[in-house]
């Protein structure tokens, strides 16, 4: 596969004063797949999106889309559609007028605006001011805006944020269908579970740095490949023999949990030493677990460690809570 790099980040770096938001980040995104851009909140995903769109200027490095810098597109909306986080829409304007204004810049016909309003299901509220929209309606408007120019590349920052289950399903199917048409779909999210079912490829960042990239399966494997549960009558002897393992935990007198060694290797050791195995079960890691594993050191705000006594107090500050389910702070 030769010319398969639609989005390229090359040593992309962005510093805001002393804070490095994106740190020497390089990656490639191929067409025809949904590529997830994963990372905890504050890991530089939104900044990277803004750099790709030429909204922020990189401190170092560069990014290319279809081999070009974004600012060099003659009509960018026809090539790249973007859903920006935090709803980049004037709240005092109606959805239709917003789309008409966006369309006019890139000479997109009016008919396309109504088509997109229909596609995202906003017909009934298209004439209403965006300020009164729910988060889900806002996201649908953002999707309509991104698809206006029928672009081959889509950059979507947290598109499922605030959507109800029906909306999430809708986005998931839409993204897959867009990718199936050969488009490049690059979607950021901090929701691993969502990306696990939507994305084929993932790029994982933490503190602005690339942590892992590849197919979902590769990333899971790279994170340690999960663990193997071993039930044996000679747990102690087997544990001592599994020198290749990263970690062997004894969960019960006859149960070991082995990480960093696959079931075949464990089985061979046991066979060689004639240790009877009653059970040998690989525990399939999920993308979520893999993500937690590989971003452990890269999480910006660790969850406050709450002991029983601390729970009595009410001094839980928002920023110290675990970074899940909350929109990325801007």
């Amino acid at each position, binding site marked *: 596969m030769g010319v398969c790099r639609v989005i390229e980040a090359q040593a992309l770096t962005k510093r805001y004063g002393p804070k490095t938001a994106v740190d020497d980040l390089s990656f490639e995104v191929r067409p025809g797949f949904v590529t997830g851009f994963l990372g905890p909140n504050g890991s530089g995903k939104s900044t990277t999106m*803004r750099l790709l*769109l*030429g*909204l*922020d*200027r990189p401190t170092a490095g560069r990014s290319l889309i279809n081999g070009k810098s*974004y*600012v060099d*597109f*003659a*009509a*960018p*909306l*026809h090539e790249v559609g*973007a859903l*920006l986080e*935090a*709803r*980049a*829409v*004037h*709240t*005092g*304007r*109606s959805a239709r*007028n917003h789309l*008409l*204004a*966006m*369309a*006019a*810049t*890139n*000479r*997109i*016909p009016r008919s*396309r605006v109504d*088509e997109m309003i229909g*596609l995202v*299901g906003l017909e009934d509220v298209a004439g209403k001011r965006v300020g009164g929209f729910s988060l889900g309606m806002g996201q649908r408007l953002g999707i309509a*805006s991104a*698809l206006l*120019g*029928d672009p081959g590349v889509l950059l979507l920052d947290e598109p499922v944020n605030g959507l109800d289950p029906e909306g999430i399903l*809708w986005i998931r*199917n*839409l993204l897959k*269908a*867009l990718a*199936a*048409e050969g488009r490049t779909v690059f979607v950021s999210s901090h929701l691993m579970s969502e990306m696990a079912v939507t994305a084929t490829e993932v790029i994982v960042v933490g503190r602005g740095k690339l942590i892992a990239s590849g197919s979902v399966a590769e990333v899971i494997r790279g994170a340690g490949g999960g663990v193997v549960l071993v039930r044996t009558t000679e747990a102690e002897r087997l544990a001592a023999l599994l020198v290749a393992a990263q970690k062997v935990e004894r969960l019960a007198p006859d149960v070991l949990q082995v990480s960093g060694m696959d079931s075949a290797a464990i089985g061979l050791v046991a066979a060689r030493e004639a240790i009877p195995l009653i059970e040998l079960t690989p525990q399939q890691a999920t993308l979520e677990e893999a993500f937690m594993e590989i971003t452990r050191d890269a999480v910006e705000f660790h969850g406050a460690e709450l002991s029983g006594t601390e729970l009595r107090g009410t001094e839980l500050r928002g920023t110290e809570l675990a970074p899940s389910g909350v929109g990325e702070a801007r």
Partner: protein
Amino acid sequence: MTATTIARSDVGAARITQAGVVRSEWIKIRSLRSTWFSLLAAVVMIVGLGTLFSGLHAHRVEQGNGPGAQIGLDATQVSLRGVFLAQLAIGVLGVLVITGEYSTGMIRSSLAAVPHRQPVLIAKALVFGVVVFVVSLASTFAGFLLGQQAQASTHAQASLSTPGALRAIVGGAAYLTLIGLLAVGLGFLIRNTAGAIATLFGIVLVAPILAAALPEPYSNDVAKYLPLNAGSQILVTMNFDPTQLRPWPGIAVTALYSVVALVGGALMLKRRDA
């Protein structure tokens, strides 16, 4: 509902044109309520206050000094006094056209659609400038005509053929447009509604007061070059104040403030992260 329903539109040789960006800004400016409220306020101030001041002036003449003794009052200027209040509405609108995009995040959509950025500023200034000029001109005309009617009893009212009257009418609209464009430039420079409005009215309304506090020989040398003092000379048709600039040089000085703010705004727009 799947994406297969998305027909490929004719991408062809589409490219961003200044005309397209202007059309976009025209859609934007007319689709916000704040535009209509601000313009309505400006119209009411120009026409209403022009008529009111003219009526009060005529009343004063009837009461005291009698016909002929106009105490040197400029009938045209009296009927255009509303311009001074209308500049508040126009100034606020000029700031909001820009900072409203920054506060809502809309600016990122606008600049992603037009990554060269400058066409956005040009289109905004152009569309806003034309809208404000047209509305202001209609208002100064109406204010002048109604105002002169209200001054009929003084027998010293002006007409469109009075020397300087037309200049004052068109100039009043031009002055408001320039103050509005100064606001647009400050909006791009400061990006924050409160900050830009404070700066605008600091320059336009507060600076003349501060200049007056300077020691005598310098006080007027500074004051006459401030945008309010300089630009408002265009409303004068008689008894020109020798310490102030003449009408045309005056409005040119005000225009210079607007140009500097717009150029500064354009440079910062290009340089800064959105």
